[in-house]
């Protein structure tokens, strides 16, 4: 069955897996340690990610490593946009905090 990238990223666990392996290639065991679910459940998610080419497998000796395929992800969205958005939201909250602090100072 051919799966698409949208389906792959619809699930929060799969997004978490992508986030982890985007930083560094990981073995199935290393990945599974980050999740409360069973190793089988994590494997199932990886299989879906691999089927839509977001994840590549490479054999190093006896270990399999999962790599993130950023080229495929770029088909979905500008990968920098989430980082930008995160900081914008952070700084919006900081704006509010600063407004409150300034108001408090003026009262004193």
């Amino acid at each position, binding site marked *: 069955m051919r799966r698409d990238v*949208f389906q792959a*990223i*619809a699930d*929060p*666990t799969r*997004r*978490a897996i*992508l*986030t*982890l392996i*985007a*930083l*560094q290639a*990981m*073995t199935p065991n*290393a990945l599974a340690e*980050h*999740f*409360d679910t069973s190793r089988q459940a994590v494997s199932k998610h990886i299989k879906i990610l691999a089927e839509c080419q977001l994840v590549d497998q490479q054999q190093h000796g006896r270990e399999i490593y999962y790599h993130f395929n*950023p080229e495929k*992800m770029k088909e*979905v*969205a500008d*990968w*920098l*946009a*989430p*980082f*930008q*958005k*995160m*900081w*914008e*939201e*952070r*700084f*919006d*909250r*900081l*704006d*509010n*905090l*600063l*407004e409150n*602090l*300034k108001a408090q*100072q003026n009262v004193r």
Partner: protein
Amino acid sequence: MSGKNTTRITAEKGKQEFFIEREFEAPRELVFRTFNEPEFLLQWMGPSNMEMRIDKLDNRSGGSYRFVHSLCNGGGEFGFNGVIHEVSAPERLIRTFEFEGLPERGHVSLEFLTLTELPGNRTRVHIQSVFKSVEDRDGLLQSGMEGGLNEGYNKLDELLASSIINN
């Protein structure tokens, strides 16, 4: 107050650093406090759908810190730590940063926070992060990891929702 100030993120291809710049409508002393005092940090630093905890914040030159972000649904905890190289109120903060979720240690970056006074009681915040490798930098930028797993994915979620509607 006028419209929102722009957040400018610069990450040149193939470089080991990125920059974040933003101006604030508040005096420098006050902005500096919001970057340093735990009660203030907790009010803005944590990603919106994660809970932030300050495990340790020894905020002086030679000190250290550890912050933890946890998914609200109990899905996991992600720690960050570093040592504080220099705290020079109200203009400069230099510290290291390491994400604890990686399978190996040593992927440390160096952060410089510089606050500049602007006319009219305004402040410019400039952050420079320097990484060990281009891969480390790209990993952090692309993953949205620093802010927690789900935070950065709103745009993807929107895209996903619209693709479902279109189908």
